[in-house]
C-alpha cells in the first residue's frame, strides 16, 4: 500500500460534509414548503416532525465532519438525541390538543382511538 496524503482525507471529509450540508438544507426547505402547502394541522405536523429532524441530523453530520473534534461531536450527538426524543412528544401534544379543541377532522383518524370530540 502506498503512502496516502493526509490532505486527501481532509478533501474527502469536506466533500462528504458539503453533500450532507446540501441534503440537510434541502430537507429543511421541504419542511418549510410542506408547512405552507399542506391543508390540515395533522399534515403540517407530518412535514415538521419527519424531514426536519433528518435534515437537522444531516446538517449536524456535515458540521461534525468539518470541525473534526471529539468534544464538538459529543455536543452535536446531544442535540440530535434531544431532537429525536422531544419531537415525538411535541407532535403528540400538539396533535392531541388539536383534536380536543376541534381542529382535527375526526374523519381523518382511522381508527379513531380518542373517541368522539366533545
Amino acid at each position, binding site marked *: 500500500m502506498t503512502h496516502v496524503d493526509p490532505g486527501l482525507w481532509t478533501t474527502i471529509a469536506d466533500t462528504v460534509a458539503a453533500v450532507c450540508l446540501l441534503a440537510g*438544507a434541502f430537507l429543511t426547505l421541504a419542511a418549510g414548503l410542506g408547512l405552507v402547502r399542506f391543508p390540515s394541522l395533522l399534515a403540517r405536523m407530518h412535514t415538521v416532525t419527519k424531514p426536519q429532524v433528518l435534515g437537522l441530523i444531516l446538517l449536524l453530520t456535515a*458540521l461534525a465532519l468539518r470541525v473534526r473534534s471529539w468534544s464538538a461531536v459529543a455536543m452535536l450527538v446531544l442535540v440530535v438525541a434531544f431532537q429525536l426524543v422531544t419531537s415525538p*412528544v411535541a407532535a403528540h401534544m400538539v396533535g392531541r390538543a388539536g383534536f380536543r379543541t376541534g381542529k382535527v377532522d375526526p374523519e381523518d383518524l382511522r381508527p379513531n382511538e380518542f373517541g368522539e370530540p366533545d
Partner: protein
Amino acid sequence: MMLAAVIAAAVLVAVAAMLALVRVERGPSMLDRAVALDTLTVTLVCAIAIEAVWSRRTETIPILVALSMVGFVGSVTMARFAAKEPEGEGRVRTPEEVAAQARAADVPRGEQRDGARAIDAEDDAESTGGAPR
C-alpha cells in the same frame, strides 16, 4: 466548492424560514403557529450550524443545544394551553379592521383602555372574592 455549498444551503434554509413565517402569519389556529414556530427554531439551529461549517468554529455549538430545547418547550407549552377559539378569531387583523372596530365601539382610545382596565379589575375582584355560583 465549500463556499458554493454553504451559500446554496444558506439560501435553502432562509427560504424555509420565510415559508415558516408565512405559516405563522396565516395561522389559522394557535397550534398551526406553534408548529410553524418550532420549524422556525430548527431553521435557526440549521443556520447557526451552516455558519459553523463555514467558519469551523466550535463555540457556537452550545447555542444549538439551548435552541433545540427552546423549540420543544415552546410548542409543548402552547399545546398545553390551547383552547377552543371562536370562528374567524385566530388570524391577524388588518389595520383597516382594527380601525373599523374602534369606530364601531365609538369611544376614544384612552377611554377604551380605561374601560378595559375597569373590566379587568372586576374580574380580579370576582376571582379573589370567590363569588358564589
